[in-house]
């Protein structure tokens, strides 16, 4: 079926036809309308490119992008596709160049902003060959992205219609990003996962405040987070972005909570850690929020779980494959002990994370389960049918918000 042919259920955001997670035509349309469309996508942490000439490569959807620090000291981003015959201009994931970017195929040279500076043998050799006079360097640069920075995070877009980044993010979500980035970020390391599911199944998982204490029984067991502890979800009016937040367990009522959870299979009363040091955290921000999961539409995630802070990028790699990239952050003023805390708490997340490994698998389970059921729908009614902020996490409002933002882009 073609992307256009899908008829959306009358229940609106409370129903999602599984086809949107499997159909190759819908996927191709997404690459165009969502990832090359009017959305801001995370590219890098500005501090990853300290010096002019530093560059790294990433993607807008599946489109390769190079991000540079220009001679002007500014961040620039271009499609990583040579204007001559389409070769990758930058082959390395990260690098530095003192004289702009040179394509290996025919040595066409660009400056760090993507302007074509020279064409090898443009005038030919011995008066023979070369480019016609009609050829103008300025008409053949790399395709440029708009870039903007928020709290030290670099975002990019290829669409002229994308609103200003700060307006796109909005004050509420923006404040919750700023809350985490109080200092100069320092990268502690990166890791990536290949997920065998459509990218949106992972984004739904991120926005799913309902699942955490049920799927991640580790969490529950240690009362690290329960739906019974104080917290809620903040959702941008557009539905596009969200933040879920939880306050320290002490604010919850454990007795009542255990009672409530006693029906849930996940509780193991007897389960205690032999070496709990890895959970020793400090309230470094000072507002008592021990957990914050934040997303910016379509594919950026910022996570603060106690002292482990990471940005996640969700990259589509096909209708049924997704790459999830994690970059773990500390701050310039962390001492050794604080860094150690972050490294130990990092056991909670990532591909082997005590409270995240299930998220790597569940999307693939769904992808397998919906085969032959592409015209069936998921039921997203927890917390009602709206996508407004709520003072509870026992809701799927943030997921409905995602569809609220995705559907008009896709014309559904």
């Amino acid at each position, binding site marked *: 079926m073609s992307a256009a042919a899908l008829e959306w259920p009358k229940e609106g955001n409370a129903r999602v036809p599984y086809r949107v997670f499997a159909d190759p035509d819908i996927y191709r349309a997404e690459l165009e309308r969502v990832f090359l469309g009017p959305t801001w996508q995370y590219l890098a942490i500005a501090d990853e490119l300290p010096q002019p000439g530093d560059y790294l490569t990433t993607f807008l959807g599946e489109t390769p992008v190079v991000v540079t620090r220009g001679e002007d000291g500014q961040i620039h981003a271009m499609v990583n596709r040579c204007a001559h015959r389409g070769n990758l201009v930058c082959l390395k994931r990260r690098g530095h160049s003192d004289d702009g970017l040179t394509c290996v195929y025919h040595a066409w040279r660009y400056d760090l902003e993507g302007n074509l500076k020279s064409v090898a043998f443009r005038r030919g050799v011995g008066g023979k060959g070369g480019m016609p006079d009609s050829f103008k360097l300025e008409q053949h640069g790399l395709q440029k992205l708009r870039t903007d920075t928020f709290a030290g995070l670099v975002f990019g877009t290829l669409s002229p219609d994308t609103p200003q980044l700060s307006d796109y993010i909005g004050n509420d979500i923006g404040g919750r990003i700023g809350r985490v980035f109080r200092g100069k970020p320092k990268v502690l*390391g990166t890791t990536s996962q290949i997920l065998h599911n459509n990218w949106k199944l992972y984004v739904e998982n991120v926005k799913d405040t309902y699942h955490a204490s049920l799927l991640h*029984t580790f969490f529950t067991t240690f009362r690290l987070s329960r739906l019974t502890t104080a917290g809620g979800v903040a959702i941008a009016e557009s539905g596009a972005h969200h933040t879920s937040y939880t306050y320290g367990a002490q604010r919850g009522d454990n007795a009542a909570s255990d009672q409530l959870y006693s029906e849930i299979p996940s509780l193991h009363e007897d*389960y205690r*850690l032999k070496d709990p*040091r890895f959970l020793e955290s400090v309230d470094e921000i000072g507002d008592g929020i021990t957990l914050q999961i934040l997303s910016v539409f379509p594919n950026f995630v910022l996570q603060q779980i106690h002292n482990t802070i990471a940005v996640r990028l969700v990259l589509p790699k096909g209708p049924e494959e997704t790459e999830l990239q994690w970059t773990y952050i500390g701050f310039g003023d962390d001492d050794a002990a604080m860094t150690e805390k972050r*490294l130990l708490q990092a056991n909670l997340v990532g*591909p082997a994370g005590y409270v995240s*490994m299930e998220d790597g*698998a569940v999307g693939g389970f769904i992808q397998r389960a919906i085969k032959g059921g592409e015209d069936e729908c998921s039921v997203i009614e927890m917390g009602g049918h709206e996508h407004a902020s709520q003072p509870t996490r026992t809701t799927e409002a943030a997921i409905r918000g995602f569809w609220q933002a995705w559907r008009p882009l896709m014309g559904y």
Partner: protein
Amino acid sequence: MDAAAELARIARRIALEELYAEYVHCLDSDALEHWPDFFTDACHYRITSAENYSAGLPLGIIYANSRDMLRDRVSALREANIYEPQTYRHLISGLRIERDEGDALDLETHMLVVRTMQDGAMSLFAAGRYADRAVRTADGWKFASKVVVLDSRLIDTLLAIPL
């Protein structure tokens, strides 16, 4: 080198080969409860990527600083975490002694892990090396430190069972 010393050197190397054979057998036969026993009390265990490792970035996919933390990892896998049935098959090759202090050694071996899911799908799950510190103790060689350096940045789906 005299015969006795030569024999001792060889016997030690074989003991180390056997150590690795037992280690991977433990993981691949789902005897995870015994996995921590291959380590000293105050051990370091870390799984990381060559990219992080060579950049000097300390992050680990798993990062533990005591044998008890390894025991906690096993308990979580048994009692808390949810993942599909799967098994590893480790292959070890090319044991090298990088630093020889007699009863304390820096060791390196190449490793490769094939993962098999319950539906029968096999995949090349991990390739890399063990960069280890082994010490001779009353009950044999133990790992004071084991850093699993994976060649790839990517983990397929999740990493539940340790490497």
